[in-house]
């Protein structure tokens, strides 16, 4: 939206953009009211009580307790309204709906790499369907970045060694900016891209073109390639625990505590395998720190998640998420080993 050719307002393209903007307008209104109030008062006083004689002095007024209370309490009440309203919008912004479609993003100097569960990989471009909640799990392979979608009014930092997430539901087909909002070195301002919001049908046809096997398939291939399958047997009789049907469930550790199997736990167990060993197993697993790329880790996570069919997120399309085809996709570099 623009005024006399000057852009003044960003595109509203997500389900909560309107909520954020309403809150914004409320604070603009409060700010404008108080700015004008102060401006009018100081200008009027400045004119009305302008010094008339060289030796003139002001009236003797010490203060006024009721007025002090008034201008402490009223701003406090307004501030509490802002806090409460802001917190509720924020809570909504930070809680991805359970049925969200999963996408992974990895930031690196200076590009955004996106991976879809169906296998599509994109750099600085992201295709998403309109009208579906989409959850993006974000990490970084070097320094801090921040994945920012101005048209969706949301962002989250990409932190090396950690997973963060954001979600949105795009409401308007079109192409919008992706920015890196956290300074990350030389080409920080070049770490930008476009998110393409497609009608569901258009998205399906986009998906149909050029898939190279699902993300979980790639994870499965990597799983075999790294020889994880020699210990993590389906039967549970291997040197490592079976990974079937564990996602989202608590497992007991050798020190008696429990941990829920999620992205962070799987990541830690691969990179720092001795940290949390499952009860009943020996700490035999080698550490894979520095041997698997962030994309490789993500594919392994998706593969392990796919071994728990009940908890597989609502992936689009009918493409199997069960890793049936074990062969690595042809014509590409080995997944996950591209460091």
């Amino acid at each position, binding site marked *: 939206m623009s005024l006399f050719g000057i852009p003044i307002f960003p595109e509203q393209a997500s389900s909560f953009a309107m909520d954020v903007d309403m809150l914004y307008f409320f604070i603009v209104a409060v700010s404008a009211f108080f700015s004008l109030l102060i401006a009018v008062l100081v200008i009027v006083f400045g004119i009305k009580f302008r010094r008339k004689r060289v030796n003139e*002095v002001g009236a003797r007024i010490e203060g006024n307790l009721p007025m002090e209370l008034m201008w402490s309490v009223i701003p406090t009440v307004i501030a509490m309204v802002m*806090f409460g309203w802001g917190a509720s919008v924020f809570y909504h912004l930070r809680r991805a709906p359970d049925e969200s479609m999963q996408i992974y993003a990895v930031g690196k100097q200076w590009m955004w790499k996106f991976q879809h569960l169906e296998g599509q990989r994109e750099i600085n471009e992201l295709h998403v369907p309109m009208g579906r909640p989409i959850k993006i799990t974000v990490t970084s392979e070097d320094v801090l970045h921040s994945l920012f979608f101005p048209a969706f009014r949301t962002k989250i930092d990409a932190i090396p060694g950690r997973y963060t997430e954001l979600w949105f539901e795009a409401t308007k087909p079109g192409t919008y900016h992706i920015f890196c909002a956290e300074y990350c070195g030389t080409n920080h301002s070049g770490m930008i891209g476009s998110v393409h919001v497609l009608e569901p049908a258009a998205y399906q046809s986009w998906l149909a073109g050029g898939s190279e096997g699902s993300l979980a398939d790639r994870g499965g291939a990597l799983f075999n390639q790294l020889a994880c399958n020699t210990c993590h047997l389906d039967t549970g009789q291997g040197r490592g625990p079976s990974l079937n049907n564990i996602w989202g469930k608590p497992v007991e550790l050798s020190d008696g505590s429990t941990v829920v199997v999620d992205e962070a736990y799987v990541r830690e167990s691969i990179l720092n395998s001795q940290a949390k060993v499952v009860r009943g197993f020996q700490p035999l697993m080698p550490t894979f720190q520095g041997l698997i790329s962030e994309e490789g880790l993500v594919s392994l996570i998706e593969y392990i998640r796919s071994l728990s069919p009940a908890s597989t997120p609502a992936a689009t399309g009918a493409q199997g998420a069960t890793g049936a085809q074990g062969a690595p996709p042809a014509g590409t570099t080995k997944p996950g080993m591209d460091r």
Partner: protein
Amino acid sequence: MDATRKIPSLHYLNNGHGLASWLLTKDHKRIAVLYLITVSIFFFLGGLMAVGIRLELTTPEGDFVTADTYNKMFTLHGVIMVFFFLIPSIPAVLGNFLIPIMIGAKDLAFPKINLLSYYIYAVGGIFVLSAIAMGGVDTGWTFYTPYSSAASNTNVVPTALGIFITGFSSILTGLNFIVTIHRMRAPGMTWFRLPLFIWAHYAVSLIQVLGTPVIAITVLMLFVERAFGFGIFDPARGGDPVLFQHLFWFYSHPAVYIMILPALGVMSELIANFSRKKIFGYSFVAFSSLAIAVFGFIVWAHHMFVSGISVYAAMVFSFLSFSVAIPSAVKVFNWTATLYKGSISFDTPMLYAYGFLGLFAIGGLTGLFLATLGTDIHLHDTYFVVAHFHYIMVGGAIMGYLGGLHFWWPKMFGRMYSEFFSRISAILVFVGFNLTFFPQFVVGYIGMPRRYHAYPDEFQVLNVMSSAGASVLGLGYLLPAFYFLYSLKKGEVAGPNPWGASGLEWEVPSPPPTENFAVTPRVTSEPYEFTPRVAREVELV
């Protein structure tokens, strides 16, 4: 002006000649002048960087300097302006000069430590200047890890050491002020007879003493990680990058109040003296300074709402952040009420005070957008944030500094500056400031991230507006250098109290003698007493 006014024959400026008498002085007033010269040099350097930044941003392509040069310019702009100009400006120049005189003392409690503070500050400054000479540093003034500790290949170490060293200057100055305010007040100068300038500096000194050690240890850890490879913040070495942000902001948020609180103290003096009226609600204004200092320590994580902290931690810090808005609002309302039924004159310092009110109000109110979680997620790390903190730290702190400098200049040097040019400069600064930074709120909300060397075309119009405004602002900042220097020799003699102001500093000659008071004054009245003849009763014992 009264033609019979004379500069006293002996005063602090001519009591001792030669470079050594200045460089080894223990007189708080001469040390203030040393700081004045040094911070002005740093302000000029930081300003040059800003010129480069605004030139680059007039076009979207990033064609004026390379990306690396641009990144170094905004980093040095931030480092110099924050650590070497804004933090020392009002306390080390005006505070140093005025605190002893305002409370009726001959000097600060520890004059030698005061000189030591200056040299520590200077050594820290030399480290940063040498970092520039060696090719600069590109981490941003925030030094976020792991970029600063593991990825950047610029001069992070000398810059971090410069900040580490300068921190001790800040700590020692704070200590000196606290002890001075406690122990050196003249007979009758009770706590509630202190000028509000003193209350503000007392609050600032507390933050300096309590907060600065945290940034010192933080940059030291950064240094250890970078120089010796210890894993503290870098996840590749087992560290935690978010820990750095907690530590950094635990100091650097209160540091915002180190920069703004002294300006709030200056404001109280200006508003009271140029409306010749007692400050409305003295104790509320005094205690709001302390409240800001205390609350300022518990809001740091509002800089981290998108850094992966938990939803509930974010809510707690959002709630606490609003608590610091209230004492700031209380101050603004009290100043406004002070004007009511005052005798208001618009000399240059009051023009700055009016400008301050406008800019500080906008700066404070736009902070609400960032304390509010729902809007901060979108606004974080955009130009909206840049505009907000410039309204506080430039609009607020520098307006306060310049207002104070124009108010006390005749006291410091005994002569008046050009009234005409100083008014022009006050107006240019106010107008230029708004033209520069208001468009940045808009370009921030439409999504332009900060620290961008090149940007998409649709942000250009607002950036051009901002750069055009910056040229007006730059002119407004340059003018005082000329008329102040001119006034030193040619200015009209000011006399002890050219404004008809109230306060002990206006009872002594201008410039004051080295010992400030021939006899220790005895204070018998409240601050800001204005009678038509004498500003204030002071019994000389």
